[in-house]
């Protein structure tokens, strides 16, 4: 292994941020904390994006690995033990100085610290703890800190780290036990889920304590998140979405992130992503994830064993609406909030605005437009004061034809040869070639 000691900071930052980039979570949301006047930084519950990299992803936190040395050998990971790459580590002081100096120039919203596993999970977690302790207590940093819990670390050190950080996450990596043991032999469901459960219990018991003693330290106030890799195994969308739903329900997660698989190792157990990473699939999963969290949908409504993958032409909400035309048209001036949410073209904000505005006066199509309703999608599904915007048919074919003429078709469908669009198509287009 090529271990670099005493390299300059620039080189280290280059290597260790490059190694961390496949972690998709880069949000700084979920906690509001005002500065107490003695240190640097504060937090906004909505999160702040500081820039956007060339792949269009938000850069909000200084996303780095503490070290890219690793004793684990997960086949999808660029830092796995077998890879011959340059290895290096930060020192706690370097991480502190980078974070403080970047923060005061307003480059970043805080620190995202992950790590490869050096010597043992406990040893690594302790290094992370020391770094955070320096940053929080010695440098009095009050900005956002997101830290990865290392699977297999002791509960008490995870707890100590939890009191210094805003958000913690443990990556689930793969949706099923089987695919996890195939690709990540050193990890298992238990070492991932037990710290996740510990953090969940920590958060809820800490909330009860806070009610009694206000000055008490907060434990992981912005909640925890996790991440799954999409497209590295044969798991279908239905499996993935069901797992997310269970995580939201049983573990109170704030977010589940999906990361389209990029084959960085050219490993024979993994599919070649010849057409680039499965970005459309990732996008559809995020859309469905939003439907679970904010639109009161359940995974079983969106997908089923018979239809395990998302429609590539229509977003999951439109797709659901088209299959359930019996609920439409919805009268916007009387329908309740939850019904409004299920209309394509009406989102959380516009549904709230409609509910507020119709108490004050009559709605019209022009006022709906001003409230942010996307009429070109919604008009097939709503009536306003008993009238449609213009006469349309409540027919599957008619609506799909009109919807598709307005929505730019995903680039994944561009190279397809012409054929009759079938509505219930799945993602067979990115059928992966498995190298053997």
């Amino acid at each position, binding site marked *: 292994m090529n271990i670099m000691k005493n390299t300059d900071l620039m080189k280290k*930052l280059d290597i260790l941020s490059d190694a961390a980039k496949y972690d998709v979570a880069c949000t700084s949301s979920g906690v509001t904390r005002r500065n107490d006047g003695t240190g640097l930084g504060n937090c906004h519950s909505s999160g702040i994006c500081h820039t956007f*990299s060339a792949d269009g992803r938000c850069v909000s936190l200084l996303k780095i690995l503490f070290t890219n040395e690793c004793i684990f050998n997960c086949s999808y990971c660029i830092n796995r033990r077998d890879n011959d790459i340059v290895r290096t580590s930060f020192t706690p002081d370097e991480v502190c100085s980078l974070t403080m100096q970047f923060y005061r*120039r307003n480059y970043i919203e805080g620190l995202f610290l992950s790590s490869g596993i050096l010597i043992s999970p406990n040893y690594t977690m302790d290094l992370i703890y020391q770094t955070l302790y320096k940053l929080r207590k010695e440098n009095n940093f009050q900005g956002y800190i997101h830290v990865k819990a290392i699977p297999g670390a002791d509960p008490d050190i995870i707890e100590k780290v939890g009191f210094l950080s805003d958000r913690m996450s443990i990556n689930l990596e793969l949706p099923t036990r089987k695919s996890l043991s195939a690709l990540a032999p050193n990890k298992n469901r238990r070492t991932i889920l037990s710290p996740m459960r510990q953090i969940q219990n920590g958060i809820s018991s800490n909330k009860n304590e806070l009610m009694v003693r206000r000055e008490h330290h907060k434990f992981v106030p912005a909640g925890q998140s996790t991440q799954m890799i999409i497209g590295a195994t044969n798991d279908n969308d239905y499996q993935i979405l069901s797992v997310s739903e269970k995580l939201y329900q049983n573990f109170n997660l704030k977010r589940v992130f999906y990361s389209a698989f990029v084959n960085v190792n050219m490993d024979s157990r993994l599919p070649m992503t010849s057409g*680039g990473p499965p970005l459309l699939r990732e996008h559809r999963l995020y859309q469905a994830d939003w439907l679970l969290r904010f639109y009161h949908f359940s995974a079983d409504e969106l997908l089923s064993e018979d239809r395990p993958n998302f429609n590539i032409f229509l977003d999951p909400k439109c797709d659901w609406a088209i299959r359930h035309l019996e609920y439409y048209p919805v009268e916007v001036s009387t329908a309740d909030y939850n019904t409004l949410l299920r209309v394509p073209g009406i989102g959380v904000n516009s549904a709230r605005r409609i509910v507020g505005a119709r*108490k004050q*006066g009559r709605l019209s199509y022009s*006022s709906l437009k001003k409230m942010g309703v996307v009429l070109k999608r919604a008009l097939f599904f709503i009536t306003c004061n008993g009238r449609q915007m213009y006469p349309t048919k409540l027919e599957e074919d008619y609506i799909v034809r009109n919807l598709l003429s307005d929505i730019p078709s995903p680039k994944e469908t561009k190279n397809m040869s012409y054929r009759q669009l079938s509505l219930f198509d799945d993602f067979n287009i990115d059928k992966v070639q498995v190298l053997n």
Partner: protein
Amino acid sequence: MNIYICENTLDGLFSSIFQAYEDRHPHEDNKVISTPINNYELFANYIPVLTNAEYAQRVNRKLLNILDCTTYYQLCSAFLCESTIAFEISNSIYHTVVRCIDMAKSKTSTKNLMKDLTNPYISQIFKCSKRVMREADHLYGFTRFKELQNGILFARIHPENNLITILMDHFDNRFPLESFIIYDEPRDIAALHHPHCSSILLKHPSFDDEAICKYSEDENRFSQLWISFFNSITIESRTNPHLQQQMIPKRFWKDTIELT
């Protein structure tokens, strides 16, 4: 029709609202304009209003009494909007204030006032305020400070709206122990902050051009580190410049370090 012409400040607008109440003309026939007029109307009575801090304060106090803070904040932030959608925004604010005061007189709650988006005045205020707050949210992130030789952090911004006061509020709380200056170049306004002092706003600050271009030794090092971090965080196989430009519009690029 009576048209009140006031100075383009919140105080000016509040003074003319006070004046309009003093004059006791029916409010439906009144109009308040705070931007310079280039086209006069026939059959209108133009009334210039001098800004009076005391009158403005009285209107302000009244509003704080009858409105909840979100609504009050929306009214004030809408006034900062300088895009084309803010055409005659002072008039919308004036008529909304009149409506609030009427509601308060008849003891109706003003809590749901801003939800009445079918009303054109309120819908305009809502839109303008949203536009200002959206740009403020952008600039919370996209503002970049550079450390000068004397240790002061200096940031230049070129915003569409006059939102330096909102930014000042944000960064005051974020960096209480730093000395920093935010300079709105097109409007020539600067916000100055010094630790343990209250911040001040300066019009036409006339900075020493040389002093604000001399950066400290560390500055170059950390900006290079930042640029190299920014470049290495990109996943090449996902490159999507269109999405990037959609998320950080081009007009912000020149004030960031990593995209210029």
